[in-house]
């Protein structure tokens, strides 16, 4: 059974090929069946693989398919590698992916480019599966770039609007900056260790490099560059909020559940390298912490329902990075999984709300929708509770694990922990701000909203609700993967600390209620202070990062491109041409066209020649 994992990426690939070759001439029915069905088949295979893998008790299993290339000792294969980590990932990708595909058959039902949508979606799942199954970094890189491409295509799916195109290109180019750093990391790894096979490379690194030496630090930094690009962490986080220009299922699948967590996967996959570079690992924690706080502030100031969720995603991935940075490898992956459940739920719920309100995304034009949209209400209630780590929902377990591990870091542990807990407090505020504004208070528009009908929309939502509530009890088989990491199984944490971790998110919810649920505290009064207005503006713009990058990189590039559109090097050759033309004008004066002038110059030349002959 385990040898059948090559079927996993094959089904989506076939789906993609069929839909692509049909050139959109397929009716929506068959196109939907192919698009969602291929992922369903993959999920079935993944489930079977999971069962037999867990029963076999193997630590890992490699399925070689073919040798990609073999040049001078560089011989990456197209080989699939399955271990506990990959297993969790493929289950999340195909499972959540399948639910989102089913949901999309309802959500996109009225779109004329229905089959193109599923074509890209299937290609995405194919690339994402290769990313997590590849046994070498080059195959991982293939999947890595492939998901980036699909992300680009799907963000710009509604290509009529130039803004969507801009958002899509921004996403691709910004992540490409990180990808390039990662590619350089691959060059360095190969030059130093002679292989890109992940397991061989990690063993070689352990054997050859000392802990804390510079080479593992540099390679880990370069890989981190790739990870922050893909996972929208500081300093490359700016693309994710704009990526919400795509259809909402895309935001759920790519920009919440799977692709953006690829950076977390990459670091977990190469965790040995980061353990060899403790400083870089600590940097990962700080990157995560700062990102989660910054995104938390920004999320509190947004009005667009999807942008709030986008900043929340950035913030939650920040938690995963924090987990990676403090050595809670399983905790980070566990949070990746639970986050996939509840964030997919939130996005799909948001999609249902948006569709019910005729593509309205501004939360302040909603209000009091809990009666009209009971399913959406339930989605946001359950998803929001899981997101704020309400006790015994899925998010509670995973966030707990990360924060407790943070506390155990020597020296800076208390700060990392404190930052994480404050972030959780913000999470409570912004999540329930959204919740109260949309579903309570008075209706501020779209009074006629009716719930979107259809089993293919409702069923995935209910399954995701169940997963968000109870996903915390799913055991993740990661012990073998991270066995030599620090031991986090025996947590000793004071009851007070634990109390704080539970209380602060609840306090956040309470503050939200005071401001938005009951109106006891007034937002207007708060906003009347100049300082809060300025802060609001600053946070709302994402801490001015877009402006900064425009100023530092984009505008200089555009300026240089504009002034040099004619290619300055050409001027040199134009100058040569002008010089020879000037010479021509000079000499052409001797060509009078009169016979006697030519005869005279011949005679004169003759005399001159003779004279020279005589004189010399």
């Amino acid at each position, binding site marked *: 059974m385990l040898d059948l994992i090559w079927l996993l990426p094959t089904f989506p690939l076939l789906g993609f090929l069929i839909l692509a070759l049909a050139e959109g001439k397929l009716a929506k029915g068959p196109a939907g069946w192919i698009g969602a069905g291929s992922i369903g088949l993959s999920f079935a295979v993944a489930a079977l693989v999971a069962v037999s893998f867990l029963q076999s008790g193997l630590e890992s299993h490699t399925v070689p398919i073919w040798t990609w290339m073999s040049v001078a000792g560089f011989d990456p294969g197209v080989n699939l590698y399955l271990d506990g980590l990959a297993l969790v990932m493929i289950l999340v990708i195909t499972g959540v992916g399948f639910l989102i595909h089913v949901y999309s058959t309802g959500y996109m039902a009225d779109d004329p480019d229905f089959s193109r949508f599923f074509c890209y979606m299937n290609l995405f799942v194919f690339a994402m599966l290769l990313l997590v199954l590849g046994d070498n970094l080059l195959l991982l890189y293939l999947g890595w770039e492939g998901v980036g491409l699909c992300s680009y295509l799907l963000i710009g799916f509604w290509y009529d609007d130039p803004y969507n195109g801009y958002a899509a290109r921004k996403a691709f180019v910004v992540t490409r900056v990180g990808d390039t750093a990662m590619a350089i990391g691959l060059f360095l790894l190969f030059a130093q260790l002679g292989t890109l096979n992940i397991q061989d490379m990690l063993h070689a690194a352990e054997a050859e490099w000392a802990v804390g030496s510079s080479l593992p630090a540099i390679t880990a930094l370069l890989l981190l560059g790739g990870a922050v690009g893909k996972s929208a962490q500081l300093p490359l986080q700016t693309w994710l909020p704009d990526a919400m220009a795509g259809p909402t299922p895309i935001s759920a699948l790519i920009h919440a559940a799977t692709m953006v967590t690829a950076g977390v996967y990459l670091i977990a996959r190469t965790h040995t390298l980061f353990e060899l570079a403790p400083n870089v690992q600590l940097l990962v924690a700080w990157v995560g912490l700062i990102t989660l706080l910054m995104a938390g502030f920004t999320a509190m100031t947004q009005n667009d329902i999807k942008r709030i969720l986008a900043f929340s995603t950035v913030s939650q991935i920040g938690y995963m990075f924090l987990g990676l940075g403090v050595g809670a490898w399983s905790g980070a992956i566990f949070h990746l999984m639970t986050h996939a459940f509840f964030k997919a739920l939130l996005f799909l719920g948001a999609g249902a709300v948006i569709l019910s309100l005729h593509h309205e995304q501004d939360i302040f034009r909603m209000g009091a929708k809990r009666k009209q949209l009971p399913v959406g209400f339930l989605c946001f209630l359950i998803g929001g509770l899981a997101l704020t780590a309400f006790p015994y929902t899925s998010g509670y377990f995973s966030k707990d694990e990360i924060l407790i591990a943070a506390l155990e870091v020597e020296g800076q542990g208390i700060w990392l922990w404190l930052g994480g807990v404050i972030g959780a407090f913000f999470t409570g505020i912004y999540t329930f701000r959204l919740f109260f504004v949309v579903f309570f208070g008075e209706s501020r528009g779209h009074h006629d909203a009716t719930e979107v009908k259809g089993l293919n929309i409702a069923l995935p939502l209910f399954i995701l609700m169940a997963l968000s509530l109870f996903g915390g009890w799913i055991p993740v088989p990661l012990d073998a993967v991270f066995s030599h990491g620090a031991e986090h199984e025996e947590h000793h944490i004071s009851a007070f600390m634990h109390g704080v971790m539970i209380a602060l998110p609840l306090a956040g919810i309470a503050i939200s209620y005071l401001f938005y649920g009951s109106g006891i505290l007034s937002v207007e009064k708060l906003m009347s202070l100049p300082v809060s207005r300025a802060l609001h503006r600053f946070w709302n713009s994402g801490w001015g990062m877009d402006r900064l990058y425009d100023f530092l990189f984009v505008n200089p590039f555009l300026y240089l491109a504009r002034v040099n559109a004619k290619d300055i090097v050409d001027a040199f050759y134009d100058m040569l041409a002008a010089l020879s033309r000037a010479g021509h004008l000079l*000499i052409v*004066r*001797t*060509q009078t*066209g*009169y*016979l*006697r002038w030519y*005869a005279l110059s011949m*005679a004169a030349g003759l005399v001159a020649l003779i004279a020279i002959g005589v004189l010399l």
Partner: protein
Amino acid sequence: MMGAIPVEHGLILAGILFSLGLIGVLTRRNIVFVLMSLEVMLNACGLAFIVAGSRWEQADGQIMFVLILTLAAAEVAVGLGLIIQMYRRFQTVDINVLSELKG
């Protein structure tokens, strides 16, 4: 022996004839006269060859003269043909009209 005439005299005469011909080529506007002046120059060369041949008592000089004579005849034939063409096309024999090679 015909050594009565010194070779210098013959060469000077040839030189004078050549210069006269050259002046004619340079100053005349009528193309027929230009052609005639050219003939004078050719014959001046021929004279120089004859004088040199007699000085060295070699037949080469006379052979060269015959060659020049033939050349001149051919040249006149071609030249007159061109002049007739020119007259037909431009209705003139003024050489200054033909200045299309001006750069």
